[in-house]
């Protein structure tokens, strides 16, 4: 008789080790159909980033198509490099087990998928809010920047922070906004993909990167891209 069967179920559950949430990137590569859709949809990141960096205050001009697209492609390249680095670091902590289908290549793939999906999902609401700002402007409703940055600035203004200090904190406000967009994207994508998941988790589930790590990387990437676009 095993010890486990004498232990009540509630106690068994309480002994289960806490697992950090993982970003459900495996859906994109579970079959050729979804992989094809993902590969095409991936490039939406380029126009989304172009729109954001050419419409944020102090950003690039709309005519700077080549610099803006180059910046976006550089961001994609950085995602690939960061994915390799992250997978390699994860392999040091927990060695891949090829017998279970867990390979270093697979982990890199998961990181690339996770970062690309999350980055695009983070830029989407920013781009939509900037687009909405253009429509609102025609009706004299003024938003100074994307919706999160504007809200943060108004919050600081509302609690009495003076204008000079707010101007000096512009980079940090933008960084906080990037974190909000990134983690909102992580939560939204995780919820959507988990709801749409059919059947048990595939073999690739163990290779998925941590959701918090993905959010942090995307937030830093977004901050860096927006900062580069606004440098004088």
């Amino acid at each position, binding site marked *: 008789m095993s010890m486990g069967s004498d232990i009540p179920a509630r106690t068994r559950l309480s002994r289960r080790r806490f697992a950090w949430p993982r970003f459900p990137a495996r859906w994109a590569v579970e079959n050729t159909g979804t992989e094809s859709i993902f590969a095409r949809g991936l490039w939406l990141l380029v126009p989304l980033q172009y729109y954001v960096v050419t419409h944020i205050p102090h950003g690039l*001009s709309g*005519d*700077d198509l080549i610099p803006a697209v180059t910046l976006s492609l550089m961001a994609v390249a950085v995602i690939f490099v960061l994915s390799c680095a992250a997978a390699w670091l994860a392999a040091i902590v927990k060695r891949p087990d090829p017998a279970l289908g867990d390979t270093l290549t697979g982990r890199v793939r998961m990181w690339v998928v996770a970062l690309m999906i999350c980055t695009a999902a983070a830029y989407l609401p920013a781009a939509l809010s900037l687009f909405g700002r253009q429509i609102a402007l025609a009706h004299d409703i003024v938003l100074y920047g994307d919706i999160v940055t504007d809200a943060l*600035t108004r919050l600081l203004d509302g609690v009495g922070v003076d204008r000079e200090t707010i101007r000096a904190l512009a980079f940090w406000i933008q960084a906080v906004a990037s974190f909000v967009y990134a983690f909102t994207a992580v939560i939204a994508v995780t919820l959507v993909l988990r709801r749409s998941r059919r059947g048990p988790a595939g073999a690739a589930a163990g290779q998925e990167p941590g959701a918090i790590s993905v959010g942090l990387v995307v937030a830093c990437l977004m901050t860096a891209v927006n900062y580069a676009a606004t440098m004088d």
Partner: protein
Amino acid sequence: MRQAAISTLLLLQLCGTARAIDDAGVCGDLRNMGASGLYLAYPFFSPALAKLDASKTCDAVGGFCLVKPGRLNPFDDGARFYFVPAAIPRTEEGVWHIRTQTQARNLDGADQAYLARGAINTRCSPTQLLESFPGGASYVPVNDYIDHHAAGSDARPIREIGQQFHFEIQDPPGGPACIRTDSRRAFGDLSRIYGFADVARRQKRLARFLSFVGTAAAAPTPYAGLSSEFAYYDRPEPPCFGFAGPKPTRTEYLGESIDWKPYLTTIWIKRLRGREVTSVGPGPISVSWAP
């Protein structure tokens, strides 16, 4: 009394203390003269006054000399423009926008714009002073100014310009309703009213680095000084307002006393009667500066 005032002014001059020209004093003198149009006011002890002819009118107590701009005018950093427009009905508030663009022989590439609008009460803000730049004036990047007033999808509102420069005015004049001076619904294309002529958006550092061919936007603007000001007048006396003389508005020289040689200042003055914008005079006013 007059001798005492002159002695005091001489003492101040010897001590190297600059005495700013007082708008109220100058406008008072202009009204007494029955003046109209554009005038230049020089500080009382300006070296430029020696080059002026006898047509100048000096006020020792006020500490300034007034002259109507001629063909060539001596330049002084402390000089200030004054404009006496046509009388306005007492039922209306007087709102003017003044834009100047200055070219110099030894300087170009203005990448900042001098913006001025005082912290004042207006008919649309009778109890609360308007939010303003510290001291009523500030420099903003030209790109930000262009973005704030750009048309269509290029428009990017800038907080400092929207809240510390633009403000609400009555529309229609004398009526209870108010509109913002940067309202796109009322004014449409703001760049037609407020935009600097022949001044393009400067490329950001990243764009300059990643551009593979040079563009027109990479060339510096031919202007050395750019300014944009609002004048607000709501008193029984005939209107009169002052605005800044030429200033270099390039980042490296902001607020510094440099030996620059302006040769032409072009001035656009527009009256805003609610959403109706009319240019004062047939076209821009050109003021040439002597070498």
